[in-house]
């Protein structure tokens, strides 16, 4: 090659994109480059900024800074429709088509072939048939789209997007609800489209599929670009490190020594506990004054384990024991009665009651635990709210403000306060630091440590491995809904956790462990 540089500009060039939602910086100076004819995986854990990046590029969200070039020319679409016209099409996990209309009508919605103001149904069907034949699909295009499987709906959405002269095709978790065979069909179509010169962005959390289909990988983490690599030359362990680990800076650990935690009393234990199709049976012991972390990739069964432990999901096998006595955990009420608390990952939908005040949100669980007939008086409520607003430094320090108006970090503190007010013995925290600005982040971690010193048992889920290393006494590693490894004491470091997550089999994990 005479000239080392590729003369043609990349198909899609994103430079220095930033986006904030209030105090939360969702994207910070992110770059992304897509070449024509490549399949490019965009990876990152929940909250890494993948969706935000897609939405900023396609004009769903306005951007704060940065530029987008398509085929060398700067574009700034103001809506998904404008992006589509410019040649950037997005197919979301939930297909945005109309299930009650026919496949043909969906394909040609808004641009039906017309003659004398009348839709030419026959012509439309013929063209729909031809279009889908390109994708190896031979179906009755006159039947309602809703009659077909999700896979076919996906292909229809892709066919429509491509036919609208898309040059860039963004597929957001397209395989999440497809079975193995359907995934194969989809991948076949993706390869075929790439051959035609279309650039495909593939968002997925199935790493196997990423390795199978993608040419290059871009990893985001906490709204920043971690790196862009060739798939072929990126070992899986390194990829997971990019997704989960920070720079692996040495972390000050306040862990208890191994001997110490053996002496601690068991708070709750779960024996052969599990639910079919949800999480494989596991054994778990939670001790007073101890932090147990659940580590693993998205979809590995972390949240599922947490929900079983709390009682939000009913186990179909195994036995739970609290302070030595067997218990049944069939509902959140059972969990609360036994002194458990649970801060869910989805704060807005599963945590706060946005319309109610900070005070009401804080006393909610305590009031539910006390029952209807023992209401907390307004004076008691005020006292409790004031105490926790001060203790957790909730801002603004106004207990009567609606929780929905608070920042993410403060909402998280309100949820913590809700459970602390019930004087729990066990707290389950699912991603307690997600979507929280840096200051509040450090505070929450300090709180976790303090609560543990007060004798609480804690079960914490986090994608931040160095965070886990900082506060955990034990780490349970999950993969594919199975508890595969438990690390304790000195064995807890980012490298070991990564090895356990990445291992293709248990033996590899053991090797990495020794």
């Amino acid at each position, binding site marked *: 090659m005479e000239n080392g540089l590729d003369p043609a500009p990349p198909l899609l060039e994103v430079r220095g994109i930033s986006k904030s939602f209030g105090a939360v910086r969702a994207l910070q100076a992110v770059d992304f480059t897509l070449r024509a004819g490549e399949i490019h995986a965009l990876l990152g854990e929940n909250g890494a900024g993948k969706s935000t990046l897609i939405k900023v590029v396609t004009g769903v969200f306005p951007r704060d800074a940065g530029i987008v070039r398509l085929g060398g020319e700067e574009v700034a679409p103001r809506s998904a429709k404008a992006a589509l016209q410019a040649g950037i099409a997005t197919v979301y996990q939930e297909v945005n088509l109309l299930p009650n209309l026919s496949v043909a009508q969906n394909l040609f919605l808004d641009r039906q072939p017309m003659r004398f103001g009348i839709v030419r149904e026959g012509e439309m069907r013929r063209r729909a048939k031809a279009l889908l034949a390109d994708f190896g699909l031979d179906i009755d295009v006159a039947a309602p789209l809703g009659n077909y499987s999700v896979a076919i709906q996906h292909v229809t959405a892709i066919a429509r997007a491509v036919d609208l002269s898309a040059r860039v095709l963004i597929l957001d978790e397209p395989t999440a609800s497809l079975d193995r065979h359907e995934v194969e069909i989809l991948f076949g179509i993706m390869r075929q489209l790439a051959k035609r010169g279309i650039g495909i962005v593939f968002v997925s959390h199935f790493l196997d599929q990423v390795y199978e289909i993608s040419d290059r990988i871009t990893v985001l983490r906490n709204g920043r670009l971690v790196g862009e690599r060739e798939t072929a030359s990126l070992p899986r362990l390194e990829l997971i490190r990019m997704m989960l680990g920070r720079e692996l800076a040495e972390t000050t650990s306040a862990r208890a020594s191994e001997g110490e935690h053996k002496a601690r009393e068991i708070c709750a234990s779960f024996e052969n506990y599990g639910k079919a199709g949800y999480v494989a049976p596991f054994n778990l012991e939670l001790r007073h004054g101890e932090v147990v972390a659940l580590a693993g990739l998205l979809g590995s069964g972390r949240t599922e384990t947490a929900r079983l432990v*709390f009682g939000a999901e009913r186990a179909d096998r195994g036995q739970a024991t609290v302070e030595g006595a067997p218990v049944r955990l069939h509902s959140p009420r059972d969990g*609360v009665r036994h002194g458990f608390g649970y801060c869910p990952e989805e704060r807005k939908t599963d945590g706060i*009651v946005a319309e109610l005040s900070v005070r009401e949100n804080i006393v909610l669980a305590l009031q539910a635990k006390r029952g209807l007939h023992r209401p907390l008086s307004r004076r008691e409520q005020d006292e409790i709210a004031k105490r926790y607003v001060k203790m957790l430094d909730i801002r603004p320090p106004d207990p009567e403000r609606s929780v929905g108006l608070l920042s993410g970090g403060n909402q998280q503190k309100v949820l913590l306060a809700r459970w602390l007010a019930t004087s729990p013995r066990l707290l389950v925290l699912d991603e307690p630091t997600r979507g929280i600005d840096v200051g509040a982040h450090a505070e929450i971690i300090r709180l976790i440590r303090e609560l543990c010193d007060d004798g609480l048992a804690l079960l914490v889920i986090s994608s931040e491995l160095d965070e886990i290393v900082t506060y955990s006494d034990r780490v349970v590693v999950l993969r594919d809904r199975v508890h595969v490894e438990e690390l304790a004491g000195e064995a807890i470091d980012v490298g070991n956790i990564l090895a356990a997550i990445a291992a293709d089999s248990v033996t590899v994990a053991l090797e990495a462990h020794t």
Partner: protein
Amino acid sequence: MTALLPRRGLAQILALIVILAVDRVVSPQFFDLRLQDGRLFGSLIDVLNRGTPVALLSLGMVLVIATRGIDLSVGAIMAISGAIAASLADSHGLPVVLAAALGAGLVCGLWNGFLVAVLGMQPIVATLILMVAGRGIAQLITEGRIVTFSSPDLVWLGNGSILGIPMPVAIALGMLILTGAVVRGSALGLLIEATGGNARASELAGVGTRAMILAVYVWCGVCAALAGVIAAADIMGADANNAGLWLELDAILAVVIGGTSLFGGRFSLVLAVLGALIIQTMNTGILLSGYPPEFNLLVKAVVVLAVLLLQSPKLSGISGVVARLRGTKP
């Protein structure tokens, strides 16, 4: 200054004052009250008396709506309980009549609550079933006739008075106080508001959201049954076809005028009842003005629009901006 005025309810109180003022203009003797045979008479008393059924319905409806539900069957429940009360009135004592009628309302409420809370049906569909079937049940009870009665006990419930106050008004007031005491005296109010505000989150916080939902539909059924008994006592008979017809819509309107969102969450019992009174004050005013009652519906629509606009967050945002602009001027 603004601290002296109640934050909530201002729009409703203003609306009521305006409507009362208009009523005073169209009917100069609107505020006249006189005592006759130990009972108060006058247009204002009429408003209260006529407004009782919707006020009672709105007491139950506001709780249902606070859980993000709706109960379309209250008019039909009125018909059922009225039919039962009228059929039993001349053969049984008042306690039995009341127990049977209110018991029927309770069963109806349980049915609605079961469909919504246990089977997870959408409230509007679930209660539509009883809305349709209920009138049929009422007609079966009355065997398709208008059942009249003469039991002085039951008639007294509709036409008697206590300390000069008409019985229906006294009953509605008593129910308001009772409901308020139960809901705000216990933790029920908070837990209902939490359930309506975010059922998933409340469930995870240990709130028995199903029990909450079941309870509000049961209470709604009981309130509707009481309204049905009073309506029957008032006319000394039960008409299964027309008793409580379309009143579910007035009750929903009263709740909405009272500032409770159809999306659930925060509610106010007093303001819901105030909403019922606003509706009735309008009805009575139009009747007194001599305009044909057809105007009633149009005027109602305009007033409802005005009250809702006063509550709209967008509009208060605009008035807030105006206030700030004024504040910055020297």
